[in-house]
């Protein structure tokens, strides 16, 4: 017993100060996309070069679909090297269209509408469903339960049954073999409920967007309230998204 107490003192207090303090991310972290300069006239190379179809040129401007983007370290999309990834981890949005980014202000997620916000704003219980991904997003959801993030202090909790849940948080592109289980789980959650798609797979199929064994993301099957892009998203990206949905971060931009 004394060993345990002394070890506890040695390990120290480790819960982070988020959201009062911004997280310190490593310099090589790849977050929000940044464009340098403008597209060369008539150049549409990126439409072919991104293996996941994340890029399109519209009216001479590049539109990058953050829902398809895997934030590749060796992003091959722009031969002119216009695409770089910055250190901003905040990426969650409320609608699929909001993930199409052409520069300028990025429409970070707004809180739930008043009716659901009143019900769920201070206590959100989620049933996590893993459906055909790589277990990377799952790991970064699990980590929110550790003492570093301490998800419980925000009133958010992952629960064991859809019957106990206010919504589902889904990871993976929804493999064909998980489709009916996902729909059953959604049905089993009592309304009003929320649906959260975490990671590139759940948003649009991710690395498996070309597969005939998977669906291209959750919103092909269910209405999605919150999209959290990334492959996998940084844990703070997920936490930031959840807090925005619950109106806990709106003043901080």
């Amino acid at each position, binding site marked *: 017993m004394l060993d345990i107490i002394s070890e506890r003192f040695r390990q120290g207090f480790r819960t982070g100060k988020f959201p009062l303090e911004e997280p310190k991310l*490593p310099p090589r972290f790849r977050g929000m996309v940044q464009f340098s300069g403008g597209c060369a006239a008539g150049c549409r190379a990126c439409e072919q070069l991104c293996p996941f179809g994340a890029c399109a040129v519209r009216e001479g401007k590049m539109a990058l679909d953050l829902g398809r983007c895997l934030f*590749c370290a060796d992003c091959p999309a722009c031969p002119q090297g216009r695409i770089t990834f910055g250190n901003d981890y905040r990426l969650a949005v409320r609608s699929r269209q909001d993930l199409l980014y052409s520069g300028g202000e990025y429409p970070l997620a707004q809180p739930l509408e008043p009716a659901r916000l009143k019900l769920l704003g201070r206590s959100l219980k989620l049933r996590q469903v893993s459906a055909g991904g790589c277990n990377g997003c799952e790991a970064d959801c699990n980590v929110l339960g550790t003492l570093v993030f301490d998800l419980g202090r925000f009133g958010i909790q992952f629960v064991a049954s859809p019957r106990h849940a206010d919504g589902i948080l889904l990871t993976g592109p929804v493999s064909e073999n998980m489709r009916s289980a996902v729909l059953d789980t959604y049905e089993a959650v009592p309304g009003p409920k929320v649906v959260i798609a975490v990671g590139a797979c759940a948003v649009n199929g991710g690395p498996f967007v070309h*597969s005939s064994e998977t669906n291209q993301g959750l919103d092909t099957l269910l209405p999605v309230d919150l999209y959290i892009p990334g492959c996998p998203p940084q844990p703070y990206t997920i936490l930031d998204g959840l807090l925005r949905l619950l109106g806990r971060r709106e003043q901080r931009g």
Partner: protein
Amino acid sequence: MMKQDLEPQLMKNGGTIDLSLVESLGYDEFSRCLLAEVKGGGRVAALFGVPGIGKNDDLELFALMARDRHATISVYRTEVGSSFPSLAGSCPQLQLFEREIAEQYGVTPTGHPWLKPVRFHRVWQGETDVWGRPLDQHPLPGDMEFYRVEGDGVHEVAVGPVHAGIIEPGHFRFQCYGEMVMHLEISLGYQHRGIEPMLLGGPHPFTMAQMETIAGDTTIGHGLAYCQVIEALSGCVVPERAQSIRAMALELERLANHVGDIGALAADVGFLPTASFCGRLRGDYLNLSAALCGSRFGRGLVRPGGVLFDLDTTLASEVQTRINAIEGNTMGALDLFFDAPSVLSRLEGSGHLSRSVAEDLGLLGVAAKACGVPRDSRFFHPTGVYQQLFDELITEETGDVKARAHVRYREVIASIDLLRRIGTTLPAGPVMAPVGPLKANRLAVSLVEGWRGEVAHIGMTDAGGLLRRYKIVDPSFHNWSGLAMALRDEQISDFPLNNKSFGLSYCGFDL
């Protein structure tokens, strides 16, 4: 007459061979050779089908048998028609490979004692589904005959695919007598994404991202295995500095997962101090990977030819400083766990597997080492920096949950030591070499000791130098059978503890 002196083609890990040198054997001789290899201490690294390159366009089978003590892999090849006699009865480690071939190509391993679907997908070619499922619709996952026990007091418990935590999907059927599990059957496939077929005609621009997400917790293991195949097929020599950085990343991946798994075991037995400490410490190791390449899982670090990110002097010394700081906390958290009598009484004797069962099933990595079976491709088939630096083959004797936990504990110590030695011997020079086109009609094999065990990738090119077949074997493919056997005569309430002690991948199995 069988040839008694047949000398198969031998390969080295990370090596390649001209396909025309691999003689096609009659099936009888093929099977005799496989059984002789296993009897002589070899094991099945992979058995897989390759369509339409034989004389009659029949399906060909390739077997790669690892001869650990000789640091070689022998290659065998045969042709089969619409069926072939199963070898699973005399060599249980072949059973899943044969079922996989049946599901993919619609050929029947006759006499297979346990012929059930593996991943529940449509047949890849031809008009035959071995189980007679309709070809015009996707098979239903879990739609098969489960083994059943009947009698007074016998009941069945079905769990999954959706579980009660943040866990991947899988279906478990327990046949119980009271609390005691008589038999556990595990049915997977829910994470199936069809990764192997998508590699055909590749490598494609999207392939590297898929290799890194075969199993996200083994990004480095699978990514490295793939890169070694491509490097072998293209004749690329990876710079020494890149080899060292790859090994650092592989050991960091092992540390993060082992420390996390011991923490999860602590949570399962209700020992909360270690559970809390390890949950955080796992993140410290992941954050070291993120310092290297920006991704906590090592995404974007390993690429064919080398690594994308170099370590400058500042970062190299920062990594060592941080390892020194984490080491003390790690050992404190783990020692607390292994010194607590209440913990040990839960771990010892639970989920016992004998050495002979582990060998028969072809178990790998942590699960095999816990049963006293020496399996570590860093030791037996070393590539890169492991050829000079790795000499610690860890095994335990008792084959129970305690042994599986303790293998991890000792591997944590060994990996921290390795990281230090890699750091102090980091060679100068470039971290990337150019990768040319793949050579035609060749076979390459790559074995990487990921944190769960040996990750095997095999690539085969066609006449145009494109991938005509690519086989992926995650250690979980072998080891799920070990979990099923370990549960026999255990209490069903000990399933979570046993499951965690194996710590297997669903997506790595499902592909």
